[in-house]
Structures are given as C-alpha cells and as structure tokens.
C-alpha cells in the first residue's frame, strides 16, 4: 500500500512516473542471428560489387595476398609457357623475324618522317642555337615537367588509405 494521501493530480504524476520506470526487456542471446537467418539480403549491383572489391583490395594484408597470388600464378604460367616456347623455337623465330622486319620498317619510316618534319620546322635550328647552359636548362625543365605529371597522376589515382575513410553511400 502507498502510505500517502494522493490527490488526482499526484496520482496521475505517480502513474506517469511508474510507467517511465518500467524496465526494458531484451530478447534472448542470438536474437539477431535468428532474424538474419530469415532475412533475404538483396543482390548487390555491379557498381556496389566493384566498390566492395576495391575496398577489400585496399587493405594491406589483402593487397599483399593479391600480389603474392599474382606472382605465383605468373610463375606457374611461365612454367608452362617457357617449355612450349623452347619446343616451338624455329617457328617462333621465323615469326619474330617477320614481325620485327615489318615493325622495324614501319619504325624506320616513322623516324624518317619525324626527322624530316623536325628539320623543316626549325626546331633543330632552335636547339642548335641554344648554348650549353640554356640547353641543359631546357632539358631539366622538360624532365621536371614530365616527373611532375607522373607524380600528379599517381596521387590522383591512388586508393584512399586508413581506417577513417568516410562511409560512402551508393548513389
């Protein structure tokens, strides 16, 4: 028995307070597993699969495993390819000579065309007019420019690393 004189308002407040203090019940252990056993997960789209594969491969251990697997498969492939090449060497040699002949002829013609155009464009005269110091400066600038483009491309294309990569929701 509540040993108090309670008015209606107080009794109402007591009721509300008692309701708010009612305990919260929990299901038994493994409830989530039993639910998931009955849920049909949607089949992910190719885009989602690609993102999952990329995120999986970006982890260092997985990347190392992939690289090791690639190296091992390359070794196995070479173990089959090299004996085959050696066994068919004469035919391969004839084919290689034919291809090289065609390629070298095309390369020779290409180089001749380039050199003729370079000679007629005045670029050769310009280069010859440069003194030793200016020539080295031009070569250095060209090299640094090429290296900068390569570094920029590397940073642009690299995979994000670290655990704080924000969750990306698929569009």
């Amino acid at each position: 028995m509540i040993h108090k004189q309670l008015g209606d308002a107080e009794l109402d407040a007591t009721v509300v307070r008692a309701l708010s203090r009612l305990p919260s019940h929990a299901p038994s252990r493994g409830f989530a597993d039993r639910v998931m056993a009955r849920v049909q997960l949607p089949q992910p789209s190719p885009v989602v699969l690609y993102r999952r594969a990329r995120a999986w491969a970006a982890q260092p251990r997985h990347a190392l495993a992939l690289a090791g697997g690639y190296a091992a498969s390359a070794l196995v492939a070479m173990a089959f390819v090299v004996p085959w090449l050696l066994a068919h060497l004469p035919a391969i040699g004839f084919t290689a000579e034919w291809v090289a002949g065609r390629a070298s002829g095309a390369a020779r013609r290409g180089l001749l065309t380039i050199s003729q155009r370079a000679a007629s464009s005045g670029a050769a005269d310009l280069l010859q007019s440069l003194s030793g110091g200016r020539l080295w400066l031009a070569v250095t600038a060209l090299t640094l420019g090429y290296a900068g483009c390569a570094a920029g491309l590397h940073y642009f294309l690299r995979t994000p690393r670290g655990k704080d990569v924000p969750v990306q929701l698929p569009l």
Partner: protein
Amino acid sequence: MPTAKDLQSLSDQEVVALARAGAESAYRELVRRYERPVFSLIYRMVRDHALAEDLAQDAFVKVLNALDSYRAEYKFSSWIFKIANNVAIDQLRRRELDTLSLDGSPDARTPEQIEATALQATDRAETPLAELEARELGAAIEEAIAKLRPEYRSCIMLRHVEGRSYEEIAEALDLPLGTVKTYIHRARHELRESLAHLRG
C-alpha cells in the same frame, strides 16, 4: 564495407540506405538498435517471453524484407513500431490473451526462468521503504496495463515507456493525433482508477 562502429554514428535513414545496397552489417545495426524497444512493446502486449520473441522475430523479418517499400520521409522508428504493434494485436486477437503473471511467465520452469520473466520495478538508489513502495507500485502498474484495451496499451507504452512523441505514435499506429491523445488520456484514467485502492 562499413564496420559496426561506423554504422553507430549514422542516422536510421542512412543505415537503411546501406541495407538496401546489400550491407549485412547495416541490417544487423537496425536489429541492434530496435530489438529491445520492439521486444519490450510486444512482451508487454502478449506477456509471454517465448511468444514475444517469436513475434518480435516476425516483426523484424517483415520490416527487413520490405525495406524497399520504406519511405525515408517517415521515421523508421514509427514504421517498425507500427509493424510490431500490428503483429502483437493480431496475436492477441487470435489467442485473446489478457492474463498477466507477476511472478514470472506461466511457461517458466526453472528458478532462473522465473526470475528472468518476473516483473520488477525498482530503483536501486531508493531507500528500502521507497523500494518496497516502488516495487508494489510497479507490480500494480503492470497488472493494470494488462487490463487495458490493446490499443490503449500500445499508446501508453509507446508514450510513457518508450518516450515517443504523440506525432510518432500517431504515425506508428496509423491513428489521428487526437485519437492518440484520447487513448492515452483514457488509459491514464483507467490506470489511476486501478491504483486508487492504493491511496492511504
């Protein structure tokens, strides 16, 4: 793939979006967030632990298998409580369950099961006398709740036990706002009437 730790900081709508994309961890996060409130609501409706667990499972399976039909402009909590309430109401209509056991579920056999399903309403910070009064009051409240009409019971549970707003309850139970307020008012009146005998 987002980890469980990443998911905890996301809103319900964001977790649902990940679940729709096929992330199993997102499904588990939704279960983790709502298993206690949903189970509590259903348990207080049907008063049987094993049955409540089966019904709660059914509710979650219905919700998670129908995520494509969930509309993000509504609160996810309202949607899941609606389905849970409907599952409980359907069961009550089938079985016409309106009994309550304060001393543990009628299916409890071992002392541990009895203790696990017995109703307790104590505050450890209280004095022994206050604790006794709170225990008596809690038991009386539970008994009184069991006698309420199912729709009154749902409204009063969602309002004062789960702490949902009137608008959320109206959305969850698909009732007009005025009807929700009326049900809660009448439920509190009936609970006061049930507890009036405890006045000194």
